């Protein structure tokens, strides 16, 4: 009995502590205590992304004195941001807002349970159909775009092309012929930067336009477990393109160590002729080499025929809120701002024009870099396809390791395709997709 008595003061102390805590958080959320602060969590990997978030936050806070948005770019880069975001969401520890990919990666976050549904905002109607699908489930819409649509393909050095009298290739065979000529002239035909492992996937991912040109139902069939990369010649070809370049020894000698910024420097300096990357990197070209930005052009990954030539596009990343946020109304107001012409202006201010916006009413204004200029006609002609990750939830996590294996000659295209199929199967099973 005496022990019982002794525990009581302790219990009482706990209760008082809990009350005090409750009192604190109640006070913090009150409306009389100045502006509500929204924290926006993101990875530290891409400086342009951070600049964009900070510009959006500053412009919104200026127009809405009662809400202050603070960017917290303390997250890790690369594969580790995925783990951080999943863990923070799963444990209810996420900030009021966070920056993350749209499409398959977003859908793996279990949005219906973990994210704040913002589908009741009028601004959702202004989002382009293609984009809205990548941040929505059957039950709601969850994100607002923090950038413009992008394309994936090859940046190329225009002076090298002019000196050698080459034309922008429309088929893979033309491209390989160009590479031979470039190599003969003593320039590395294709720059790779496996030091940033994710960049090894670019040729493969940006080839999706050509896969769907040959197999229009590929994405749906893949989702339903009715097709594989290894058994679909057009899909296997994406791996074979990496393999062909590696076997022809077309990469720069230090391709295993180079990182993105160094690769762009090599391209601008004319040490290499092509660099496969997403067009968001045009901002890096303009920042680091403002005088040479017009020397860099862009073309999509070429396919089998010149008639079926088109661009694989990427939807912009988005800002989301966790379902646990204490300030849902303020969060929704902020997202409405992001997905408005004013928001587009903030984005343009921060990173320049990187492509067409996915919000109705946003126009491309001001200077456009040569890279974007080369890309826009594909959007205007409708010769585009979203990348696979915006069409299917199936996205095995190890693709970048497989493309590194093919690029370094550790494995063949066939091996990598089979391994990627197995990787996809593991992912689909772990996430409980139907039919796997």
């Amino acid at each position: 009995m005496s022990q019982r008595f002794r525990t009581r003061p302790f219990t009482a102390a706990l209760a008082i502590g809990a009350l005090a805590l409750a009192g604190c958080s109640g006070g913090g959320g009150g409306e009389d205590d100045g502006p509500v602060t929204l924290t926006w969590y993101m990875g530290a990997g891409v400086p342009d992304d951070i600049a964009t978030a900070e510009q959006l936050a500053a412009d919104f806070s200026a127009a809405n004195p009662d809400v202050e948005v603070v960017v917290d770019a303390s997250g890790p880069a690369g594969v580790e941001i995925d783990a951080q975001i999943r863990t923070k969401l799963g444990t209810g520890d996420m900030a009021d807002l966070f920056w993350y990919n749209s499409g398959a990666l977003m859908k793996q976050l279990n949005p219906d349970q973990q994210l704040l549904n913002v589908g009741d905002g009028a601004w959702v109607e202004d989002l382009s159909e293609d984009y809205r699908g990548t941040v929505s489930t059957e039950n709601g819409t969850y994100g607002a775009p923090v950038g413009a649509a992008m394309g994936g393909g090859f940046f190329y050095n225009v002076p090298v092309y002019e000196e050698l009298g080459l034309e922008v290739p429309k088929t893979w065979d033309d491209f390989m012929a160009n590479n031979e000529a470039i190599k003969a002239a003593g320039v590395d035909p294709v720059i790779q930067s496996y030091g940033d492992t994710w960049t090894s996937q670019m040729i493969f991912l940006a080839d999706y336009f050509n896969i769907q040109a040959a197999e229009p139902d590929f994405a749906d069939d893949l989702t339903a477990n009715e097709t594989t990369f290894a058994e679909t010649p057009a899909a296997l070809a994406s791996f074979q393109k990496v393999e062909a370049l590696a076997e022809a020894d077309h990469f720069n000698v230090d391709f295993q160590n180079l990182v993105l910024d160094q690769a762009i420097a090599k391209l601008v300096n004319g040490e290499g002729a092509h660099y496969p990357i997403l067009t968001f990197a045009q901002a890096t070209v303009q920042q680091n080499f403002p005088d040479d930005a017009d020397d860099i052009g862009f073309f999509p990954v070429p396919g089998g025929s010149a008639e079926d030539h088109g661009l694989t596009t990427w939807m912009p990343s988005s800002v989301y809120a966790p379902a646990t946020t204490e300030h849902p109304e303020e969060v929704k107001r902020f997202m409405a701002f992001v997905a408005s012409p004013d928001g587009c202006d903030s984005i343009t201010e921060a990173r320049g024009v990187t492509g067409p916006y996915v919000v109705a009413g946003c126009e491309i204004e001001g200077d456009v870099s040569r890279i974007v200029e080369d890309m826009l006609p594909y959007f205007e002609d409708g010769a585009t396809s979203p990348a696979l990750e915006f069409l299917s939830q199936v996205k095995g996590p190890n693709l970048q390791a497989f493309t590194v294996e093919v690029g370094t000659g550790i494995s063949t295209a066939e091996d990598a395709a089979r391994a990627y199929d197995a990787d996809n199967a593991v992912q689909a099973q772990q996430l409980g997709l139907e039919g796997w």
Partner: protein
Amino acid sequence: MSLAPSQPIRPPIPPSTGPAIRTRRKLGNRVNKPYPGWFYAPAAVIYGVLFIAPTLASFYFAFTRWSFAETEFVGFDNFVTFFTEPRLFKGFTNTFIYAVLTSGAKVVLGLLLAIVLTSGIFARGYLRAVIFFPVLVSTVGVGITFKILLDPFDGLVNKALAVIGIQGPGWLTDPSLALLSIAAVDVWKGIGLATLIYIAGIVAIPNEYFEAAKVDGASAWAVFRHITVPMVRPAMITVIILSLIGGLRTFDLIWAMTGGGPGFASDVIASTIYKQYAAGFYGLSTAGNVVLFLVVTAAVLPLYLFLNRKSKDL
């Protein structure tokens, strides 16, 4: 703690006979327990909640697919996946290669260094400190530093080799070399601890043995073979066990230097588990942790029993 040795091994028999029988029986088991049971409770609660419970829970979650919010029981599927995926299995074999290499090198080189550093060598204290310093440095820091040093083109190592006319390989980018390079850095970083343990063992050998051997005219090799090696056996067992466990569950150095690459060439179980976790495959990654737990236990427990039995035979 200091109370324990001072406790009487056979406490005096209390005067009253009734409780005495009970007490004596009790004391037969509890002779080494100076505290009443409730005294252990706080530690037991902490240990139970933070270690036992999660361990038991992980055995359950290893048989499920779970997303923090919901779980689905899938039997042995996760383990089947782990062992049938060639690239997951590669991490499994790499773990053993890595553990045996690093442990072996630390056991042998650590002993040799300890012998040098217990001899009357010049600047002995300074050299001991220098050998030990890498142990104090953050592993990730060491990994990043060596990643830069081992860069095939701009790295100090290959530039130094170039001076004497050798074209150095891609230490971390050649798939057949990457794991070995990391193992070498691990040995460099960890050998200080092994050496320290050996030094303690060697210093503890009574000087009479060496004097007697000298009187009998034993060679340096004979002293080493028949006195030092047998007498540092307890230290050697500690080094083997510690470095083997460390090698089997290594993660930070590999992650900082190659991230398991190129491709999967330097993946070990721990980095594989981490990647599964990062991808949101919590069930599969927990299964990997259970595998790692069983592997470490299966490798170390028999070794421990074997080595300790041997030491008693001496």
